[in-house]
């Protein structure tokens, strides 16, 4: 599974919710097949739900098992941070590894 070393960016915008979840999952799967490092940019998302957060956790987990990396382009902010905080995703487990408080530099 030796992929390319160049990071692939996946940008989400608008509604990062269950309505668009299949397309989002496909984007992440393609990016992970293409590269060892995937950078997720959520700067333009306007709505975030638990489905989307769960998908990011799954992507992070899948990448780690394959010796790859999925990381956020920037510390969670705005709508993403709100959803993470309200959903209790900032503490504990894989969610913390991806979004954890220590990575949050500001809102």
């Amino acid at each position: 599974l030796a992929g390319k070393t160049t990071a692939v960016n996946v940008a989400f915008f608008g509604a990062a919710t269950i309505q668009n979840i299949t397309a989002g999952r496909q984007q992440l799967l393609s990016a992970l097949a293409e590269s060892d490092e995937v950078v997720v940019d959520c700067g333009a998302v306007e709505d975030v739900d638990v489905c989307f957060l769960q998908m990011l956790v799954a992507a992070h987990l899948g990448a780690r098992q394959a010796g790859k990396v999925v990381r956020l382009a920037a510390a969670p902010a705005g709508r993403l941070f709100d959803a993470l905080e309200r959903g209790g995703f900032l503490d504990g487990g894989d969610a913390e590894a991806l979004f954890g408080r220590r990575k949050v530099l500001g809102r």
Partner: protein
Amino acid sequence: MTADPRQVFIEEAAELLAQLETTLLALENSPSDQELVATAFRALHTIKGSGAMFRFDAVTAFTHHLENAFDRVRRGELTPSPTLIGLALAAKDHVRLLIESPAQASAGEGDRILAGVAALIAGDGPSPEPAVEASGPATWRIRFTLGGDALERGVNPLPLLDELRSMGKCTVVADTSAVPELADLDPYRCHVHWDVVLTTQQPRSVIEDVFIFVMDDADLRIEEAAAEGERLGDILVRRGDVPAQTIEAIAAKQEKLGTLLVKEHAVPEDRIRSALAEQKHVREAAQGAAAAAASVRVPAERLDSLMDQVGELVIAQARLKQVVAASDDAQVKAIAEEMERLSNGLRDTTMSIRTVPIGTLFDRFRRLVRDLSRELGKEVRLTTSGEETELDKTVIERLNDPLVHIIRNSLDHGIGDTAQRIAAGKPAQGQIHLSASHSGAQVLVRVRDDGRGLNVERIRAKAEERGLIAPGASLSTHELYQLIFAAGFSTASEVTAVSGRGVGMDVVKRAIESLRGSVEIDSVPGQGTEITLKLPLTLAIIDGLLVRVGQGRYVIPLSAVEECVELSAEDDLRHSGRNFLNIRGDLVPFIRLRQSFRSALPADPYQKVVIVSAGERRVGLVVDQVIGDHQTVIKSLSGLHADVEDFSGATILGDGTVALILDVGHLVLQGQAAEPTRQAS
């Protein structure tokens, strides 16, 4: 297919609104009851919160103001005056429209209600002594896992968590350990579960209310964290630091406290046993209470489908029984008997699942009585008893309209106005009592008022005027009462908005008879009237008496059967032309079913007469043979047979043939019409 979550909200909000109405009406009578205030507040709070979750924004915005008002009532800053109760009742109706048919909800009405509430709040200053919280805060451990398809059904867990946070100090942790890797992820299913620690003044019921709309599919555990702290072993196990088995194995090496105490002669052994028994009892009671509290909401159509399938099973079982009866195979017989036991158990359980307490129906009439009595300028109090009596849900649904008619009649015609009541030496406030009770395989629902009672002379005059009876006809009081069930019959001298148009009691009778029930009236002039509805426990399966007439087999509902007597050939000859029997001094008319069904075969030498009753009337049905009791799964007759009057349905017998179910009510009327009952001389 999973239920539409918005539809689930609509159904559950309807229940909450009904509960709100009951609570408000009770609060009107007991304005100082803090429990009622808390219940009303909780209902409003839940409707608001869940409305937001399912995007009923107008409901949320409107209910918010009302919730605020009741929060003030809760805190002792606002009085639950009749004006506030009246506004809250109107608000409840408005919210119902906003949820069920928003197009019909008038913004003007909503504004009027909110302006009224605002005026009350402005005029009712804060009370000098704010209410004191009844108890200190408690800490709860909440773990919830949503149903796998909850997200797909539109459930959003974030507002649930927000609501928990609004109750007090709250720590929320999403447990993502069950989330699979991306390639294996079904993105529409929820793999996350949540652990919440909440310290709040609110009781457990308020925490449970947060989950009310997701509870059916969710796995929810709410445990109060022990105030005195957990035992060391429990904390270690809970944290996953050591398996429970290890703790148990090590603890087993220790001697039990009881053994040590006995050994040291500190406590006698019997006292230890007694204390252990108490401990066991309390533990089992707690487990039992937890089990009793568990309930599941199931769509009504699934229950109907289950009942249909159980009906088919009962029929198949009857066929199996018949086939096995002819077999000598002991093993097959044993299996058939086991199957019978199981299918009977399943039938009883299914029927009990379909029953609901009649109290849910009674509650609806409190508002009716309140509003109508005000409209008519009368003081009337509705009291109820036997609310816990359970009836088939279909029967309960179809009882609403008949009971509305009866209660309206009682209010309008039965109970006089205050001046009339005082003149008659009665309390100014009239009373309508609604009760339910079991009586064998039937449920009796009674509506009793303490009004004027039925005016027999007026009924007679009206019936003669309308040509229902011949002038001067000799009729018993009971028969005269029955005339009020004639279509269009009304003795009311004036037509009011409430009743008096003669539409009602005939509708009541038809509705109750369509449920295989009957209506009886009892009245004492000047003291009041009591109307009794006799209803079957269930509409789906009945105990029947299987009889043969000629070659055909028929089922008579066992609840209507009083006794069976023999009709010998000599008796038959002696009775020819006089179709009535002397049953212990009473002359009971009988119908020869062979003639009614035009059977060409010769009659059995020893025919039987099955005496059946409907209300106070009896009639004998002459049959060739009484075969025995039969579990009867009722199948409706097709539209083609809608005009067949002697039968109320059909059933399938063990050998696969069809037997018709006799319509006892109709046959009794037919028999009575042919041979009026007379006292034997």
